[in-house]
């Protein structure tokens, strides 16, 4: 583990020129949304600040977040991981194994108290004393609590760590719990299944440059990437406003690239940067590939009804039963009830009129005619 070198120092050691270093800095600045005014600050940070050590934990997850991260295009991921961050512990990528690996983590925690960044991938099982996920004899919850205690920042990578994702879908057998519900300190949630690689690197870059966590929204997500809905930034948005919709997957409208709203696209209810940064070096994103958004960065998206339906099915009824079906039935029932009531009222009408007249007083003499 290279000790406390700055990014500039490591680049020099690799024979990169100052020009190359500044080029890298500008990539990083653009990515993290830092304007020209903030650029000198970024350069200074990369020049002077020692690389933060990183502990990357894996719990209940599929490693798709790591897979996404290593496909980050700018800054090139190999650089971020191996040169610019000091990745001290990560089950997936580390060379060490067994006791050696655990030793690395302990050393980092001791040596860099309050300085290391903790990245958590995966949810934490809380049922049955957390036995559903144990590493080196400790439960996920134990490991998380220990490592988070003295971390400079905690980042929850992906939907598992941010909102539980598929593990916490009904009926959630292991009691899968997101990180922020376990820790009392602020957690940066970077949801998505997986999150966009560029977003992940940008969040780390932000911490690296400014030495503090980025501005978060009410759900703990960095505002710069999660403040807008996929729908609002989607290139198919004009067809939505025009009312041009795909009606089935292989119709003419689908070929024309119309809006997938009626095919259950979750773009209108999903906060993410997919439509802006796109995936795989800006190549595409689900809607561009002709498939609706699944809303993978939203809370409980697995339980939000069938993916290809705009409205969720109504709980307790058949899969295809939406609120509209139930509403129509109730509406018709009300109309029928009202009609039946009108019929019975009219059956009683003669009697009612008779009673009413009986209760009336005879017309007084001074009001003549006109009646």
């Amino acid at each position: 583990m290279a000790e406390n070198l700055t990014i500039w120092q490591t680049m020099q050691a690799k024979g990169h020129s100052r020009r190359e270093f500044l080029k890298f800095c500008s990539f990083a600045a653009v990515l993290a949304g830092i304007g020209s005014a903030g650029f000198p600050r970024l350069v200074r940070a990369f020049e002077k600040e020692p690389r933060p050590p990183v502990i990357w934990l894996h719990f209940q997850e599929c490693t798709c977040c790591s897979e996404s991260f290593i496909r980050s295009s700018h800054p090139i991921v190999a650089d971020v991981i191996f040169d610019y961050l000091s990745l001290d512990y990560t089950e997936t990528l580390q060379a060490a194994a067994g006791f050696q690996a655990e030793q690395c983590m302990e050393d980092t925690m001791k040596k860099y108290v309050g300085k290391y960044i903790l990245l958590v991938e995966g949810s934490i099982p809380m049922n049955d004393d957390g036995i559903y996920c144990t590493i080196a004899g400790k439960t996920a919850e134990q490991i998380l609590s220990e490592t988070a205690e003295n971390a400079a920042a905690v980042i929850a990578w992906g939907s598992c760590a941010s909102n539980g994702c598929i593990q916490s879908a009904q009926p959630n057998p292991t009691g899968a719990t997101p990180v922020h519900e376990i820790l009392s300190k602020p957690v940066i949630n970077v949801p998505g299944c997986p999150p966009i690689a560029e977003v992940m690197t940008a969040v780390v870059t932000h911490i690296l440059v400014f030495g503090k966590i980025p501005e978060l929204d009410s759900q703990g997500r960095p505002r710069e990437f999660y403040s807008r809905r996929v729908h609002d930034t989607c290139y198919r948005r004009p067809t939505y406003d025009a009312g041009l919709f795909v009606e089935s997957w292989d119709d003419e409208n689908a070929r024309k690239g119309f809006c997938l709203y009626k095919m259950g696209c979750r773009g209108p209810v999903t906060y993410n940067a997919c439509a802006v940064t796109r995936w795989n070096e800006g190549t595409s994103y689900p809607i561009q590939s002709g498939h609706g958004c699944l809303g993978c960065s939203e809370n409980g998206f697995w339980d939000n009804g069938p993916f290809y339906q705009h409205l969720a099915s109504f709980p307790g009824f058949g899969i295809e039963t939406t609120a509209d079906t139930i509403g129509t039935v109730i509406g018709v029932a009300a109309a029928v009830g009202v009609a039946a009531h009108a019929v019975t009222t009219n059956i009683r009408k003669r009697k009612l009129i008779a009673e009413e007249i009986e209760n009336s007083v005879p017309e007084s003499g001074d009001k003549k005619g006109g009646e």
Partner: protein
Amino acid sequence: MPNTTTSSYQRVYVWEFPVRLYHWVNAITVTILIVTGYIIGNPTTITYGNEAYQQYWFGTIRFLHFLSAFIFFFNFLVRIYWGFVGNKFARWNNFIPLKKEQWREMIEILKVDILQTKMRGRISLGHNALAGLIYFLSFMVFLFQCITGFAMYSSMSSSPLPRLFNWVVPLMGGDFAVRQWHHMFMWFFVVFIIIHVYLVFYHDYVEGRGTTSSMVGGWKFTRKD
């Protein structure tokens, strides 16, 4: 010659102008909101141009929905205000059954409406106690629709009013859930309108006090004897 008998009635000014205005603005906006809301949830593809730039009907439908929603919301606020300054028929305590008398009347109305028994005694000239309570519950639904509606609107708006409701989205578990609930309660209005309109006609008939026309002119009639 039954037609020659009559009762002696006097006119009572029950619904003041702001109440009637509120009622009809509400009726119009709610109708627009239901229709546009249903279309927003279940749009049909209407094509009169070949390209997206040639048409904007879905955007217009959404605009109408938002416009009506704002009018509906402020109209609702005015009515709440009037519940504190209006006449005794408009007062807030008509809607919340705090008195024993209101509960007694409610049971009476249930008998008259459902069992169709003969009406005993007099019922309130303004809202009857059961109607009042139902209106109170519908006010709660109004509030719920306003809150969830503004919550969904807040992410695409920079104006302060919708942004007040930012907190609703995480509370309800995301935009998807908010949309579901907002959509589900639309059906409350549909059912409400069916029953409300019918009961107005029914009560107009069994009470014989001009219930239907009272919401236009404001006058109802009460027996002098």
